């Protein structure tokens, strides 16, 4: 493990800065799906709460990614099988990806059904109450964790220096918070996300 002064020297070198820029771009690309999910999830909230929920969602994504970066050893360990199903080893990484994938498929399918049958069925107040601020934030936290896992593994693959990885995550998250507003505006103007 590098010490902080060694990490800082690595970050301020030419190679470190190139790594930082490359990793920031990579984090943004890997984070676009995260932004789309957050934009769709907060769309169910009243307009005045949407911006707040979007920013909280992305800040939570930043926190989750930073915590995971400091738990690199634990994440690396998740690649080892926890248990076996027949000859197939099931690792923690596989369980997280499988759980997140199924959650995303089910949630998205429900959203699509709601959009298709939205005009036919009356959306009563009971159904609307399910989309509270806290429930939406909870959904965002779950999906943040799944998407963070992927992006952290990419960061570890590209740069082993924790300070560069954390800086790249912070830079990309700041850009994503700004970009998230643009995605929402695009959604309102063109209805492309709906």
């Amino acid at each position, binding site marked *: 493990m590098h010490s902080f002064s060694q990490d800082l020297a690595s970050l301020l070198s030419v190679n470190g800065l190139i790594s930082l820029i490359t990793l920031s771009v990579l984090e943004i690309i890997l984070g676009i799906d995260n932004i789309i999910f957050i934009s769709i999830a907060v769309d169910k909230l009243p307009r005045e709460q949407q911006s707040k929920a979007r920013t909280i969602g992305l800040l939570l994504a930043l926190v989750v990614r930073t915590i995971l970066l400091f738990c690199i050893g634990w994440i690396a360990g998740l690649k080892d099988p926890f248990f076996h199903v027949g000859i197939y080893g*099931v690792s923690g990484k596989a369980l997280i990806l499988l759980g997140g994938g199924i959650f*995303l498929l089910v949630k998205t399918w429900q959203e699509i059904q709601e959009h298709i049958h939205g005009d036919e069925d009356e959306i009563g107040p009971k159904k609307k109450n399910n989309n509270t601020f806290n429930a939406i934030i909870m959904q965002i936290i779950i999906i943040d964790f799944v998407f963070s896992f992927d992006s952290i593994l990419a960061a570890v693959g590209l740069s082993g220096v924790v300070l560069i990885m954390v800086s790249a995550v912070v830079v990309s998250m700041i850009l994503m918070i700004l970009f998230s507003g643009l995605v929402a505006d695009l959604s309102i103007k063109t209805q492309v996300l709906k």
Partner: protein
Amino acid sequence: MIALCFLLVIGGILVAEALLDSYNSTISEDHHIELNKNYAYIALAFAMMIELFNIKERKIKRAKDFSQDDKEE
């Protein structure tokens, strides 16, 4: 709707990655199979391009309809 369909694809990719990860545990590291997500990203970018064409087409059509209505009045 297109973004929801994107999320379906991404969900499918996550499930496929989990299954591949389990499959890779049965074979040596040299023979590990990696999921090439580029194919999916190219398909998503192509779908997005078509959607943008549709948005542009609808916009032009709407502008034409408005100008025709104005002429009739």
